[in-house]
């Protein structure tokens, strides 16, 4: 797989470079970096830092999508784990806070996985339940307030730096390496792809498809919980209404931009994270250019459509469309 990467990822890398160049043209100091108080600052670092939640979500989402599933609940899971982390932060130590928040993500993932793999529900439907109820649960935890905290340990998670690199970026990188090592270092990745490619054939071939599906939803939940903790740590508070709102869509978009097909069967972790970076680079570019941030949604819509059309099995060049139009007319 790794050997194939450069060729498969060429379009994404090219797109990222183009967007970076546009950003550079919009804001000449875009690539400037400076070291202050032991942490790097600059627009590029900002892109990485702000892209972290979506990058983490896309790490889990890409595996789910590879099994032909989808997880709509990640935004709600972020809200839940953020709410738990913020409520516990000032009374408990960091390990307890992290264990509780990530544990909640694990439970949410188990629930989704149980519905999809054991009960056999459609993934969109199964995860819709938690998407609707999850934000309610998060508000239950925060009792409808925005819970703030001052615990320096948790704040460090969102705003600190390791060797000049912001902690969230380091965590995302660590998770990417960990996930990559586990799924690509073993046959696990291949088995996940097999499950997505043809669940029945894989089952007959001896792949434990149920366990695979359960596992990817659990992992997705844990990644979402981590993203939620980081998002809460970043703003030193948890807002159950707005934490992670619409991020599930960004995460799906990142995965799709990364070339992973929604029909399952193959995935690339690295390209999904690259997709998340492309989205964030666009967002930052729009902000820097002085256009109202409302343009974000329009640009995103155009990008989704463009990527979709490129991925469309029916569209293999203009000839495809022409033949089709002729076909329908005839």
């Amino acid at each position: 797989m790794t050997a194939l990467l450069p060729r498969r990822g060429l379009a994404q890398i090219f797109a990222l470079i183009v967007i970076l160049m546009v950003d550079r043209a919009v804001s000449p100091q875009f690539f400037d970096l400076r070291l202050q108080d032991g942490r790097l600052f600059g627009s590029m670092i900002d892109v990485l830092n702000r892209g972290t939640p979506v990058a983490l979500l896309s790490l889990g989402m890409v595996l789910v999508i590879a099994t032909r599933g989808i997880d709509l609940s990640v935004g709600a899971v972020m809200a839940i784990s953020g709410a738990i982390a913020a409520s516990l932060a000032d009374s408990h130590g960091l390990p307890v806070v992290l264990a509780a928040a990530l544990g909640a993500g694990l439970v949410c993932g188990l629930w989704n996985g149980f519905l999809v793999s054991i009960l056999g529900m459609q993934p969109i439907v199964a995860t819709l339940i938690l998407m609707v109820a999850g934000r309610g649960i998060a508000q239950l935890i925060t009792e409808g307030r925005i819970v703030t905290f001052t615990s320096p340990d948790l704040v460090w998670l969102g705003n600190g730096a390791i060797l000049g690199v912001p902690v969230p970026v380091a965590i995302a990188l660590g998770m990417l390496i960990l996930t990559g090592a586990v799924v690509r270092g073993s046959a696990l990745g291949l088995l996940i792809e097999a499950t997505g490619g043809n669940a029945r054939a894989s089952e007959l071939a001896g792949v434990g498809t149920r366990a695979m599906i359960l596992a990817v939803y659990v992992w997705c939940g844990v990644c979402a919980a981590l993203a939620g903790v980081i998002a809460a740590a970043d703003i030193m508070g948890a807002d159950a209404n707005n934490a992670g709102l619409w991020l599930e869509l960004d995460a799906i978009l990142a995965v799709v931009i990364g070339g992973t097909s929604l029909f399952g069967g193959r995935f690339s972790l690295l390209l999904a994270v690259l997709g998340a970076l492309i989205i964030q680079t666009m967002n930052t570019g729009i902000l820097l250019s002085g256009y109202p941030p409302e343009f974000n949604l329009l640009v995103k819509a155009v990008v989704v459509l463009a990527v979709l059309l490129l991925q469309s099995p029916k569209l293999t060049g203009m000839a495809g469309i022409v033949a089709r139009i002729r076909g329908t007319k005839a």
Partner: protein
Amino acid sequence: MKGLPPVLITAIVLVAGFVLCALQFPNIASTRVVCNLLTDNAFLGIVATGMTFVIISGGIDLSVGSVIGFTTVFVALAIERWGMPPLVAFAAILALSAAFGAAMGAVIHLFDLPPFIVTLAGMFLARGASFLLSTESVPITAPIYSTVSDFALRLPGGGRLTAVAIIMLVIVIGGALLLQLTRFGANVYALGGSRVTASLMGVAVGKMTIRIYMLSSLLAGIAGIVFSFYTGAGYSLSAVGVELDTIAAVVIGGTLLTGGQGSVVGTFLGVLIQGLIQTYINFDGTLSSWWTKIATGVLLFAFIALQQVMIALARRPAVRPAGATS
């Protein structure tokens, strides 16, 4: 007969819920509360009718909330800033939203893309477009608005059946008739049952797909107009997340998310159940609004689990004669 048992269950849940609520708060069982429930959920009922068609045909439409938001902003600006007569503005926005839905349907069909992601792009597009029009709330002062919001049929017991509630009821009944009695409706079921089979049986799959999404967006446009009657303003952030409430109402109403089964009547009952939960929470006063979400989630789970069980039961007789089941 299609989808009757789930509809019955939804109806029983609604009646049981209503009775329980009425036992605790006798005032709930008044025409006033029931009419308010209809008025408050009028726009939801209208979108949910369109969503029922889409879901029965095996698709999904995530763009409806954004289309409602766009409609309210467009109507407000057209009337207040561009000086359009309200009826012309309504016609323009309905044509626009129908074209929008047709375009999504065309993309879904021509490029064979999952409806989920195409309508997701549509959701971004419509929301982004409404932000571009205006990010502020634009109040509407046209006389037709006060006329419509003052209009109501008085019912015994102090209930006021408002114009928006009547529009909703008309659309729900029209939708139910369209789905059950026309060739179009039969084709919608056929598409949801199996695309390939439907196309082999002579259903023009492409045309149907385009029309179904057109209908959904058109109804979302009407819902947007109703929403602007209800709030008296256009705001680009209005109706955020309505697509979820809508899908929840459709599922609670017994429509299979895999397509092929369902009914508009069930969807209407689903909307009423959601409205009832809201009303109960308002009456109680100590429960907070987030319980609505949790209760909706629990109901969603219950109904989907029920559907799962029913599908399993429906399959069993076909397998048993083969003796393959353990």
